[in-house]
């Protein structure tokens, strides 16, 4: 599997340069540098505490790194508030599902359309003209996502009642509803059974192929990462060990050591599955 776009011609969607993040003496990220190119599925792997989620929090503006530079959509996003960054076109899913459990699927997805509502409350109250047109348009977008993710059967059920794997899918749907230009997936298959994992892998691939959306994937399931990602960055203790194709990273001695401890001879990909 190769990157569909030539990195030399098309500028990266997002790039981190020498990003260092510290919390009161603990260094969560040290000199992290990588680019994600259009249409690319970029994965970040590493043991617990390696700093994977910190990268997401830096990207989405929750943490501000002490050193380095982060550019997204052509501008520096350092110091920007999370909702401003989201408005620039970055969407994410969470490790622990963050949905409104008492709302139904459609309403949760409609919330993802929030940035695309171009009308104020007076227009909404009057329910005329623009508000009405936009609501219908947004509802249609939501239906397209329902169709894309095959969740027709759950349309009007409260999200809290749905199986875990379906909730994860709906969270992906909410991120897609934002029509992002970059998607961050934080452990999309954590806690899923085999069948749910397969479904999710299929949807991630379809997002890549059908929507051409660049993604950054943080994941523990090594099999999934190695199957899906175009490039992988392996981390340990906040420091990048290596970046390359799945095969290269899998064969890297430091990666094997970080995951399995020195001297262990089991192949990473098979063991983690």
């Amino acid at each position, binding site marked *: 599997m190769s990157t569909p776009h030539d990195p030399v011609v098309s500028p990266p969607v997002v790039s981190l340069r020498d990003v260092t993040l510290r919390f009161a003496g603990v260094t969560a990220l040290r000199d992290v540098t990588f680019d994600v190119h259009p249409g690319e599925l970029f994965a970040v792997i590493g043991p617990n505490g390696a700093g994977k989620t910190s990268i997401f929090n830096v990207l989405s503006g929750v943490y501000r790194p002490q050193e380095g530079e982060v550019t997204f959509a052509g501008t520096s996003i350092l110091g920007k508030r999370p909702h401003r960054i989201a408005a620039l076109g970055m969407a994410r899913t969470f490790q622990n599902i963050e949905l409104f459990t008492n709302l139904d699927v459609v309403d949760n997805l409609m919330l993802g359309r929030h940035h695309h509502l171009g009308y104020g409350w007076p227009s909404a109250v009057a329910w005329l003209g623009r508000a009405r047109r936009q609501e219908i348009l947004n*509802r*249609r977008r939501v*239906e*397209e996502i*329902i*169709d894309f993710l*095959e969740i*027709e*059967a759950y*349309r009007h059920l409260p999200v809290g009642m749905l199986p875990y794997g379906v909730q994860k899918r709906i969270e992906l749907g909410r991120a897609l509803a934002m029509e992002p230009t970059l998607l961050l997936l934080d452990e999309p298959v954590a806690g899923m059974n085999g069948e749910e994992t397969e479904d999710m892998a299929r949807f991630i691939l*379809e997002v890549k*192929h*059908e929507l051409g959306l660049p993604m950054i994937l943080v994941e523990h399931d090594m099999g999934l990462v190695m199957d899906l990602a175009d490039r992988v960055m392996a981390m340990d203790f906040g420091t990048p060990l290596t970046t390359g194709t799945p095969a290269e990273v899998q064969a890297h001695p430091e990666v094997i050591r970080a995951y399995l401890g020195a001297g262990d001879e089991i192949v990473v990909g098979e063991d983690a599955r």
Partner: protein
Amino acid sequence: MTEPSTSLAALVRDRARATPDRIAMREKNLGLWEAVTWGEYWERATLVGHALLALGVQPGDRVAVHSENRREWLYSDIGITAVRAATVGLYPTNPAPEVLHVLRDSGATVLIAEDQEQVDKALEVADQLPQLRHVVHLEHRGIRGRYTDERLLEWDAFLDLGREHAAANPGAVDRTADAAEPDDLATLVYTSGTTGPPKGAMLSQANIAFVCDVLRGADAFIDPPPNEKDLIVSYLPLCHVAERVFTTWFNAAAGTQVNFAESIDTVQQNLREIQPTIVFGVPRIWEKIVAGVHIRMSGASRLKRANFALWMRVSRWIGRTLVARQGRHTVATRLAYAAGWVACYRPLRERIGLSKVRYAASGAAPIAPEVLEFFMGIGLPMFEVYGMTENSAVATTNRPGRVKLGTVGEPQPGTEIRVDEQTGEILTRHAGTFAGYWNNPEATSRTIDADGWLHTGDVGEWVDGTHLRITDRIKDIIITAGGKNISPSEIENSLKASPYVKEAIVVGDRRKFLTALIGIELDTVGDWAQKRRIPFTTYRDLSTKPEVLELVRGVIATTNEKFASVETIKDFRMLPKELDHDAGELTATQKVKRSVITDTFSAEIESMYAGSER
């Protein structure tokens, strides 16, 4: 009263000309029901016809359709027959080896496949299908820009071909359709085949015309006969003859409006939204609805449960009275029903999407009387019907006011039925008898005799000289070591009438006594176990819980009470897994393949007879 039917395509064309703006079908798309008028239906079908002509399809060629039920299935079916080719349907669940068998056996030159899943199956075996020239796909997701096989053609491009061809050859499809002969092969219906590979049953235009005439005739199964006001939800596989009758042929012949379910998972919701007036279901569907009602009620409030229990008792009494009176009400049952209508039956029927049903049919397999009684009791006019692919699904039906429970009813108009004195086999004869099996004259000659009688392979008997009762498939009859003939399916159906039992396979051929393999209904038993705080992980784990074994033992004891002592189940084993079409244990229509089951689970079976026969 009705003129004899012409070809299927001509029926659609006539409707398109007479009522171009009436709704022929609807499909839920992006959350909205979108209507297709008769004018649009015929226009699309004509485009398909032109496109097929452009691809070089000749009269007599076979064109396969591999898709869930949707508008394009009907456009294709009518378009194919309009150019005098034959439609070959495949089950969406058919795995690649079965796809290979059907495509190779039928010699289809064009395949219309729904999506990437079905295209993948065809391409996997395509190197063994030299005659397959084109694979048209309805959806491009996952295929466009990624697949390079030269046989692939997108639906829109396919229709564009049709437009070009129509512009260059105006009226070509109409002319071909007008030249149709009654003996034209209209479709190959592959029988699901509980033994051996599926065989292609040839149905002609004349067969279909016969079915259409029976259905809309004055002596049809309902009064008034199916018409433009009737709504149908299409959800069972269209390659099966029964759904073809209820969806495509009813629609063309009587103008009933077809509504396509959004997906298999949403059938219940779609039934609620549409509230159809005519419904066809296989026993499995009806059993599942009953089980669903029971699950829902077991989780309801105490008051609701009490209300439900009361009206279920009343409905059982109504059901029994109706059954005893062949479906006719007494004053008392009418009054009781009126009260129950307000308190329970109306909301219940609305909930399951069957509040407006004026005719519900169960067929394709025997149904347990308890299930029929449930539906009759809540006021749903449900009738058991009988037919098979080889007689175009027309043989017998129960009729309003003349119901005999446990029978499949009286012969349809124009149908001769005989029960062979020696073998007890049911024989049928009418204009709907199929033309034979495709490329299989030996099987044909075994099935149709010199006098035109179709040998159904079912054993049956007359009840009161008017109604036909089916005992079993001939080959399924168990002959015990003591020489007793036993029909396993009656016992199995009684077991399956329990909401906890999904599969029951009775074993005992050439054995001293009967035993059974039982598969639980995961939803209901799972719910039951949760309420009793019995922890479980998987199907297999749940199946082996002592409490569950006890539950199943109870079901078997109840069934045993209904049967003679030689017909009682002496022992049972649980199926360690859910039966699966992919594993070859079920046919595409979810019928159990006995020989496969008895092989796969021979260890379980032998363990029940260990010691007794040595």
